[in-house]
Each structure stands twice: as C-alpha cells, then as structure tokens.
C-alpha cells in the first residue's frame, strides 16, 4: 500500500500534466480544477506551427551524436582501465570522476568565454563537445565497472588462437560488452536529452534544443500552459521508454557503478 501510494505521488503530477495537453483554454484554470472536459487538439496545432518539431530534431541530433562520440572514444578507454596496468591509474580515474562531479554552472562560465572567442557558440559542434564533460567521464566510469566483470579467460584463449590485441577487443570483448555499452550509452543519451544549462547558454537560434525552447511558450499573450504540457510530455517520452526497458541498469548508472543493480 505504502509503495503504491508512493507510486501514485510520483505518477499523479505527470497524469495531470497530460490532461492539460488536451484541455481547452476555457477550463485550464478552472477553480475547482476540472477532470472531465471535451478534449481539444488546439495546443498541438500551436506547437506544430511554432517550430517545435525543429527543436525536437535538434535535441535528437545533439543527443545522438554526442552519445555516439562518447561510445567511440570511451569504450576503449574503459576497457583499458579495467584490463591493463596503467601508470597512475587511480589518479587518472579520479580525474575522470571529478570531471563528472563538477557542477555545470562552474563549467559553463569558461565554456562561454572560450566559445565566444573561437566561434563555437550556437554551433552543433560546440554543444556536442561541451556534453563530453559530463557524458564521457560518466560513460568511462560506468562501463569500466562492466568491463571488470568480463572473464579474462576468453580473451586469453583468443590471444592463444593468434588474435592480436586489437582483434580481441573488436571480436571478443565488444560482443560481450554490448549490453553494458547499450545500457550506459542510453543513459548518456538521456542526460544529453535532458540537459538545460549548457544548451541554454551555449546554444542559440541555430542550435536550440527542446528544453531551451520551452520559454518561447511564455509569450506576450500569456503562458501557453497546454502547449507547455505537450512539450513536457514529448521531453518525457524517451525517458519513459528507457525506464521500462533498462530499469536495472539505471541504479548502476546513477550510482556511478557503485551499486550493481
């Protein structure tokens, strides 16, 4: 019961927001609030007519590309940290971890000033690079905990069969690591998808992600609550999908691999 009640507390605001997406303006602020009303699609028309699809695409591009980059750069590093004796390994790992822990607000200040000088503000490249700060370190750190669970025997057997070390990585390790890579990468995607501050300060008209576009719904004719609810729901969709597919890995990810989940 207690847990069910807890779940209701979690779900209820989301459901209420969902109803607002279909609520006619006239009953939006009714006191007392109304639950039953003739649903309307007018808010969807507004959202579609005001370029939010473009913001959605921008969000997808930034999140997908930055995640792909993280996987490409991060996977070999995580594997190397787990498998090979590397000098000052602990210090390096601590550096990786600290990068992840740093508050975005402290990072966005130098980023803005540097980007302003080199012309990376309001560019895809700029935002994608900035997302490496939290996602690359996160990815390496969590995938490293997956890598250490890989049985070393298989790799040794492959080596004995005459595979080079690169081949072992590609042919043996990657297939075994696939679930871990997917789980971690999906979390990276979500972090990039949700990110607000970097996108807000480093983006602009050319690169405007969905979270940053939300203030456009606070218009000179008032706040568009129905439209706000729609954008909120759309921003929530990938999160919901991921949660149901990946639930166990989330704990592991959110505790930086400290809890195996």
């Amino acid at each position, binding site marked *: 019961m207690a847990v069910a009640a807890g779940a209701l507390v979690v779900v209820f605001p989301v459901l209420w927001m969902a109803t607002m997406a279909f609520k006619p303006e006239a009953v939006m*602020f009714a*006191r007392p609030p109304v639950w039953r009303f003739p649903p309307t699609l007018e808010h969807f028309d507004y959202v579609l007519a005001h370029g939010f699809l473009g913001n959605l695409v921008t969000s997808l591009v930034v999140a997908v590309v930055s995640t792909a980059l993280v996987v490409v750069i991060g996977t070999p590093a995580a594997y190397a940290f787990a498998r090979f004796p590397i000098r000052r390994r602990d210090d390096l790992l601590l550096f990786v971890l600290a990068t992840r822990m740093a508050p975005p607000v402290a990072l966005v200040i130098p980023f*803005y*000033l540097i*980007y*302003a*000088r080199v*012309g990376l*503000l*309001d560019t895809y490249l700029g935002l994608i690079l900035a997302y490496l700060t939290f996602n690359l370190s996160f990815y390496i750190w969590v995938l490293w905990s997956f890598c250490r669970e890989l049985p070393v025997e298989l790799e040794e057997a492959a080596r004995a069969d005459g595979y080079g070390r690169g081949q072992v990585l590609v042919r043996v390790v990657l297939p075994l690591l696939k679930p871990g890579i997917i789980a971690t990468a999906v979390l990276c995607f979500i972090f990039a998808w949700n990110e607000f501050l970097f996108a807000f*300060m480093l983006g*602009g*008209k050319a690169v405007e992600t969905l979270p940053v576009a939300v*203030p*456009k719904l*606070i*218009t*000179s*004719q*008032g*706040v568009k609550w129905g439209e706000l609810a729609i954008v909120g729901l759309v921003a929530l969709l990938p999160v919901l999908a991921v949660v149901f597919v990946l639930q166990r890995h989330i704990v592991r990810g959110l505790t930086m691999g400290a809890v195996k989940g």
Partner: protein
Amino acid sequence: MRARRRTPMLLGAALVVAMAMVAAPSARAWTYREAARPYAGQAITVLDEITPLQETMKTLVPEFVKETGIKVDYQLLNHFEVISRGQADMLSGRGAYDAVMLHSPQMGLLLQADVIRPIDDLLARKELTNPALDLDDLIQPAWDSLAKFRGKTYGLLNWNYNVIYWARGDLLSHQGEKAAFKQRYGYELGPARTLQQMRDLAEFFTRKKGETLAGQTLQSDFYGVVLEGIKGGTTFWTVWTAFIRNFGGDILDAEGRPTIDRPENVAAVKLWADLWKFSPPGQAEYSLIDVPTVMGSGIAAQTLAWSDFVLGIDRPGKSKFAGKFVYAGSPANARAPQTRSAETEPSMIVISRHSKRPEATYLFLQWMVDKATQQRLFQAAGGAGVPIRQSTWNLPVVKQSPFAGLYAAMQESLRYGRAKPRAPKIFEIMDVMSGLVQEIALGRKTAEQGLKEGQEKVLAICKQCTL
C-alpha cells in the same frame, strides 16, 4: 474639432512642399536603395525583443531586404534573454549580432565596457542618412535621456515602452457601484488619477466569493488591484519610477550616491505595499506577462501595466472583457503632483563595437524609425503599437484606432518618463531591491527596515553608482 484636425494636414502639406524644394537641387531624391548600393548583399543580424510590436515589425522587414539587398536576420527573444544574451554577446566579444536592442538600464554597464558604437559619424554622412529622417520628431525626453551621453549619440529611439493605468470600465461606470463608491469615499468613481485614488478603488472593489459585484454574484474572489510582484522582472523599476519618484524620492541622488532609505521612498513603498492587501494570492510570482493575463481573465479591477502587452489582451477573442477596459496615464501623487513621474522604458537598438557592417546596420535601424515604416507598422498592426514619434499620434490610423483611449494614456505617461540613470551595477541594485520590496509587500519587513537594509546592501554594491 474640425479646425484642429486641419492644422496638422496643413503643416504636412507645407512640409512636403518644403522638402521638395530642399530636394530639388540634388539630382534625385534620397532612397534606401541608393544609399544601400555599396552594401547590398551584406548580411546583418539584429537582436530585438519579442512583443507584439516586434512581431509586427518582423513582417515588414522583407520590404527593407527587397529594397536594399541587405540581408537581415531579425531575431526576436524574450525580455530576459534579449538582455542576457545581447549583453553576453557584446561583452564577451563574440560579435554574432551587429546590433542589439537595449533597455535604458543596460546603458551604464555597456558604456563602461565600451562595447557600443556611437552613430554620430553615420548620422553626419549625407549619403547614408535620409534627409527626411526628422530626428526632432522622436518623442522626448525619452530619446535624449536614453541615447545621448557626454556629447555622443548611441542610437535612435526604437521602442518606447510605457506603463499606463488600466481598469475595468464596465465596473467603473456601473450605476450601483458608482453610488456606493461616492457614498463611501466622497468623490466620483472613475479611473484613478492619483495613487491614493488607486488605493481607494482597490479597497472598494476587493470582494469575496458570494458577494455582489456590479449586480452579479461572484463565483470566486475578486481583487481590487493586480501588480507585478515577481523578484527581478520590472517590479522594482515600477516601484521606483511610478511610486517613489512621484513622492519626490529617488534611489540615487544627483551624484549617483544611493539614497534608498529617504523618508519619501519609505512613504511611497508603504503605499505600494498597501495595495498588495487587495491583490490576488500569488502576486509575488506575477511577471509583467502575468499581470495583463490576470486583467484579461477578469479577476481584478485595475492595474499598472506595460501598454504594449495591453494591445495583446484588449482584443475580441483574447479576453471576455475586450472593449470594456479604460485607460489613463500612470497616476500622480495627490500630495505632490509637481514631482510627477511614470515608468517608461525607452529602448534602442545599438550597433555593436564588434559589428563589421555598421553602415548596413545603420541603414536598417534608420529604416525602422523612418516615418514611412512607422506608419506602415501601425497600419499592419491594425492601429496598435507604441509611438516613438510625436507625429505618430496624429496619424489617421492611430486617431481612429480602437485603442484611441489607450493612446491618450500612453501619451500622458510618456510625457513624464525618462530613461534610467547610467549605473553599471543597476541590475544588481534592482535584484537586491526587488527582493526587499517583495518582502515588505508580503509583510515580512516594514518599509523602514527593508529600505534601511536596502541602503546598506546597495552601498556594498556601489558608493557612487552612475557613470
């Protein structure tokens, strides 16, 4: 009436003749096309604020592009973003924008950082400047107090935001309410002309659910007044110029030293905070956007609001009460009418130091304030806008506009509105003060305590605050 209307027409005819005579000696008349010839094909980026005014301007921009061949990326952002991003762009030296819209309080900081390009040299270049630009026509004291500093001119007057008094005319003219009001307060019910009357009206119209208002039983609580109350925003600007200055007070003295806790200021803030007793719950969250929305929704009797936002609400389909609103200039102080002041925010688009295309940009900015463009702007918006030129008041489209009453109110407010002093740390001061007056309004501090604390805090920010 007839004779009066003829005067501007005659004047206009005389002007045309005079201009034709002046222009006659030159080979052909000045045109934007000619002036822009060396710059055609250049692309400029201009950052402006998003309000109904600029949304209309945006529809006209293609005409300029077509005529001159200068490509204009006319970007609109909301009030806070236009300040933070515009400033960040200029201060960081990024230079993505050739020109950025500035509210007058930003001038101190940007002048001190030396990132605005003065336009005196451009104004003096005959081939670039429309001989009929008629700068004397720009509304004063708005333009001079905004754009001219130490012998230099930093821009033209592009927008002329102003706060007006806004009330529900249907309530003010209701016979029953009028009689009851007169009996209680001893004078005729009507739009408040003074801040004290505004308080009376606020008290009078605050009613609980179930009570009667203009003959109708109320389904929910009704409030006598609604004000902007959010921290930040323009809350304290309005307290400062529509209340404090009307009491003869000010937050900085002539030398720019903080004078937050002057007795005049205390009296003014007390009156303002008193109005909160008659305001909707949650007012401390209301921004300058929420206030017109609340007025439009019909739960409050009166307000002080930015007139450009009114234009978006007082329209059929936008509010049930469209057409029933009445307007007046920002109220005076009954006890000191000679120190009359109103909250206005003259704004201009300035050319960034970092712009590589100042001439093309200048042509565009000039075109924006051009008489012809201004006239087109008011036509395109159905007679709705905020004039930046004296001559605009006399345009037929303005005189016959459904907003004629609103225009009279704007004209009155603008007569008493000046740009803010050039204090580089003014946003920090506003931030501190808006928080404090909010606490005063919510009853957490007395006006004396709050302003005394404000004086200490502002002194910690700057001892001599203006340039």
